[in-house]
């Protein structure tokens, strides 16, 4: 397959850069940067406000991205709400769902492999409401414990919120399996798809979830834009989190009523140029198809997994069936020391707890090194990493 590196100006501007931190944020191709710039230079206007041409056109473009996102994730039976990112989408849910939790439902189930954004907001909901937070264990092979999931998801479960792909382990969770449990328990099923949408084909109907959230900046779009897709029948019952302009249908001195979905959940001026950028990123992805991304990430994962195992004393915290992301530690060397030294050779890797401290505790480590791939990476990048990891061992004389 053609390596798409030349589509990304970051590599032109940083000669020799090996970027292995796409799980944190992916780089933007020139077409997306140009589209955002064009909007700012030639089309900038607020949406849903004006009756003049510029505003109408910006509004049409904004809404066309909404349809594009919906098509991209098979979301015809729900609604796309724009947010500032995955974290905001989950926070919105954690507040807006509080008011519609049924009697006898007093538990929220997440897993030990969640990002803090899919832990803390639910902890806070539990603190506000007196509900209990339960964690599906992670097994020693870095897979989700589905037996544990079956035990935990029951008639008392109000919400199950689970990542599709772990941002640390690269584990791909079997959402269909979990979905059958949530349906049986009559629980709301939320999927954090930050590491899967745009990386593989994700269809909300096949997944069987009620809500799915992700960020634009992990799929070649700009930072500060996210998506909350939700089923209409639940969205209708939910109260907004944010109040203000754009989300109302009527305001008097005494009270207000809300606009229809999705505007009801989009108070204030939206990140219009960012949303336009997301639309462009989806066009870019559709140009070769998410299947191509999936195959590339699988290929690079397998290659890197094999090459990392060549290194003496390495401990890998990802299973063989992982996807796009590998965590590891180099003997007893702290991940910050490893990342710092390979940085000197132009290699960008992540080090630390990756916003997953409960998972670190489960793995028995303070942190890990993490590499993650995108379509601009190649086997050469992995080879360079391996060579430089060997240099780290020399520095530490291990």
């Amino acid at each position: 397959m053609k390596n798409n590196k030349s589509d990304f100006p970051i590599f032109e501007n940083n000669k020799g850069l090996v970027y292995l931190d796409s799980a944190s944020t992916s780089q933007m191709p020139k077409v997306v940067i140009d589209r955002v710039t064009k909007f700012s230079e030639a089309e900038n206007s607020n949406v849903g406000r004006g009756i003049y041409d510029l505003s109408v056109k910006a509004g049409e473009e904004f809404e066309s991205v909404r349809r594009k996102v919906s098509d991209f994730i098979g979301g015809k039976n729900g609604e796309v709400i724009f947010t500032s990112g995955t974290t905001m989408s989950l926070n919105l849910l954690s507040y807006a769902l509080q008011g519609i939790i049924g009697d006898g439902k007093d538990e929220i189930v997440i897993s030990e492999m969640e990002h803090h954004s899919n832990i803390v907001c639910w902890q806070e909901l539990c603190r506000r409401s007196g509900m209990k937070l339960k964690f599906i264990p992670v097994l020693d092979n870095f897979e989700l414990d589905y037996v544990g999931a079956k035990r935990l998801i029951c008639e008392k479960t109000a919400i199950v919120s689970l990542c599709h792909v772990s941002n640390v382990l690269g584990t791909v969770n079997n959402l269909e399996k979990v979905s059958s449990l949530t349906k049986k328990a009559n629980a709301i099923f939320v999927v954090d798809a930050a590491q899967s949408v745009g990386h593989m084909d994700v269809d909300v109907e096949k997944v069987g979830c009620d809500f799915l959230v992700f960020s634009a900046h992990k799929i070649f779009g700009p930072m500060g834009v996210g998506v909350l897709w939700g089923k209409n029948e639940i969205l209708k019952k939910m109260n907004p989190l944010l109040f203000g302009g754009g989300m109302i249908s009527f305001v008097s001195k005494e009270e207000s009523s809300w606009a229809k979905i999705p505007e009801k959940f989009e108070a204030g001026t939206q990140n219009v140029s960012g949303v336009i950028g997301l639309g462009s990123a989806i066009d870019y992805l559709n140009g070769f198809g998410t299947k191509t991304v999936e195959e590339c990430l699988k290929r690079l994962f397998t290659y890197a997994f094999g090459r990392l195992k060549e290194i003496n004393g390495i401990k890998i915290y990802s299973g063989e069936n992982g996807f796009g992301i590998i965590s590891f530690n180099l003997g007893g060397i702290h991940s910050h020391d490893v990342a710092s030294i390979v940085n000197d050779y132009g290699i960008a890797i992540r080090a630390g707890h990756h916003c997953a401290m409960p998972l670190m505790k489960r793995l028995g480590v303070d942190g890990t090194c993490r590499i993650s791939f995108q379509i601009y990476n190649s086997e050469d990048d992995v080879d360079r990493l391996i060579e430089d990891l060997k240099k780290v061992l020399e520095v530490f004389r291990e």
Partner: protein
Amino acid sequence: MSSHEEMYRENVFELFKNPLNYGKLEGSNCSCSLSNLICGDNIFVEIILKDGEVKDIRFTGSGCAISIACASALSEDIKGRNEKEILGMGLNYVEDLLEIKISAGRSKCALLFLDAVKEALRRCGDSHRRSFDVHGEDINKKMEEFI
């Protein structure tokens, strides 16, 4: 010289592998736990402060070579120093002490111990020496449990 060659000197490895003043301190009258928000490393500092002077200091916790080496060297250096001297210390002081150059991305690692010491000194003498988070929970206790 590359930035890691300027940082990972022989003395850094020695201070990292055999840290000075590592362990619990009996009879401390001020203490503080701090985390490095980037990596989650924790350091717990205990001090015996008398008449505004550090009589003894020890630390526990985990960290990278840079953070432990800096904690190790600084813990020895600040014994006998007064609060004013310590509160005036910064990254340059740490770099001079270890004779290394800290790269921009590692300043938080290098300063974790010093920041914990400064915070402990600020709290010391307060009617309530312990720190409480927004929910009223005792951060020190939580940190001690975590470590």
